[in-house]
């Protein structure tokens, strides 16, 4: 298992498959406290990502960053809504710190931290506001905390933390994004962006576990 450009491509493909499968569930979450488009938007974006990667043959010395940059720009130009620029920026910042052919454990931590910084720089949210930050931030922290573990273990810790973080958004009252307009009524529902974040990181793990 190496986290190289091929892994990054598998990650994108896995993410596309996962999002396609979860599309209706994500949209239903967004219907409860948003405008019911999150699953659909992400699905459109990741289908475009797969098409773009298919059309872009891997160079022999392709870096992880090169793949992530392609993911970033494609999401930016196809997802729209709040999630488009946020995920776009996350992957763009992640691409900047992964301009190498293979990632080790510290590089995975750097990738996640760059993603979080990108999202918070664009969206100005912090944890507890019932957004995707509530999945990305614990993911980055868990990765950093999984000191000395294998790269796979670091990635797994991040994915597990993102999953727990998404679940933990349920009782929160949203103060950012569309759900904030609902005030107290936003409590009791999981944030769609936090859930999709958990799915994306789980896809990263699955891609790492592939032969």
């Amino acid at each position, binding site marked *: 298992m190496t986290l190289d450009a091929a892994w990054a491509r598998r990650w994108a493909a896995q993410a596309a498959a996962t999002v396609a499968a979860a599309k209706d569930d994500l949209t239903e979450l967004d219907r409860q406290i948003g405008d019911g488009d999150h699953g659909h938007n992400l699905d459109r974006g990741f289908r475009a990502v797969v098409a773009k990667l298919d059309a872009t043959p891997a160079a022999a010395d392709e870096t992880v960053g090169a793949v992530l940059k392609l993911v970033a720009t494609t999401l930016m130009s196809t997802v729209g809504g709040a999630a488009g*620029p946020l995920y776009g920026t996350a992957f763009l910042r992640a691409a900047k710190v992964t301009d190498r052919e293979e990632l080790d454990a510290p590089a995975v931590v750097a990738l996640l931290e760059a993603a979080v910084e990108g999202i918070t720089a664009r969206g100005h949210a912090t944890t507890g506001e019932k957004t995707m930050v509530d999945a990305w931030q614990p993911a980055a922290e868990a990765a950093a905390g999984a000191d000395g573990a294998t790269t796979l273990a670091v990635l797994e810790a991040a994915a597990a933390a993102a999953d727990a973080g998404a679940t933990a958004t349920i009782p929160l009252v949203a103060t950012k994004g569309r759900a904030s307009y609902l005030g107290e009524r936003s409590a009791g529902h999981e944030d769609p962006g936090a859930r999709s974040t958990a799915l994306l990181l789980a896809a990263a793990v699955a891609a790492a576990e592939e032969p």
Partner: protein
Amino acid sequence: MKKLLDDPENAVDDSLTGFAAAHADLVEVHGLHGAGPVFVSRAGGAVAGKVGLVSGGGSGHEPLHAGFVGAGMLDAAVPGAVFTSPTPDQITPAIQAADGGAGVLAIVKNYTGDVLNFETAVELAEAEDVQVATVLVNDDVAVEDSLYTAGRRGVAGTVMVEKIAGAAAARGDDLAGVQAVAERVVANVRSMGVALAACTVPHVGKPSFDLGEGEIEIGIGIHGEPGRQRIAMTSASEITRLLLEPVADDLHVASGERVLLFVNGMGGTPQSELYVVYGRARALLEERGVTVARSLVGNYVTSLEMQGASITLLRLDDELEQLWDAPVHTAAMHW
């Protein structure tokens, strides 16, 4: 769900195809059916020397924004997927298409998605040497403008901003001037809406939110999101009061002042009901000693076939009144 559509996935493109054909004298629609990023620009291109006006947002609010492209109003509009902000690769070429050399004002409704996508697009346009100013519309008093929200949303008041800024650009104001007028409209316009029944996004196939037969949502946005408060169905007079009073209070509109009263339909409510609300709202304003000097009643900022309405007040002065009255020739507004 029964809709006059073919493939729901192509609803926006199919609709724009018809729109482009029906209004070829007014607009040009770019990028349809996979040809590239989709945006709408004025037929004949940017007007040299005039400040360009661009707006955009999710589709499903027609005639906003494409219906307002034309002389005296917008130079370009950028429709996203249904209820989804458009992407920077659509917005940037729209900004470029609107530039007649005097710079472009981007009119952005305050939603996280719209703001973020326009931010990126403006950066990219500036990199292409277009001078761009942005005005954020946030007229919805249903949302508290506090640390605990994403700020007030831009709703029906957007029409007033687009019309009046459009008139300022048409009379030859420079970019700073047009921006200042637009900001003056933003500062003086407030809205609030109600839904009697939710709408259904074509590719979702079920209503945007669940609403019981005896319930209504007060303080809805225009993106198919639920409102601020759910109450039992009541009379038009009472609903009008629940919308008008917060709007008038928030605007601090005082006796002796003149306003534009705009009753906007959400798409599925018949015009006859909008006029009932208009009549009630006007009576409430007259009780406050406020003069309704200008009026607009109709479906201008919709949420697909949502049943409901919103009330918008714009505090007028001589200049805003003149700019409102100035000629406009677009698909949805023409005088």
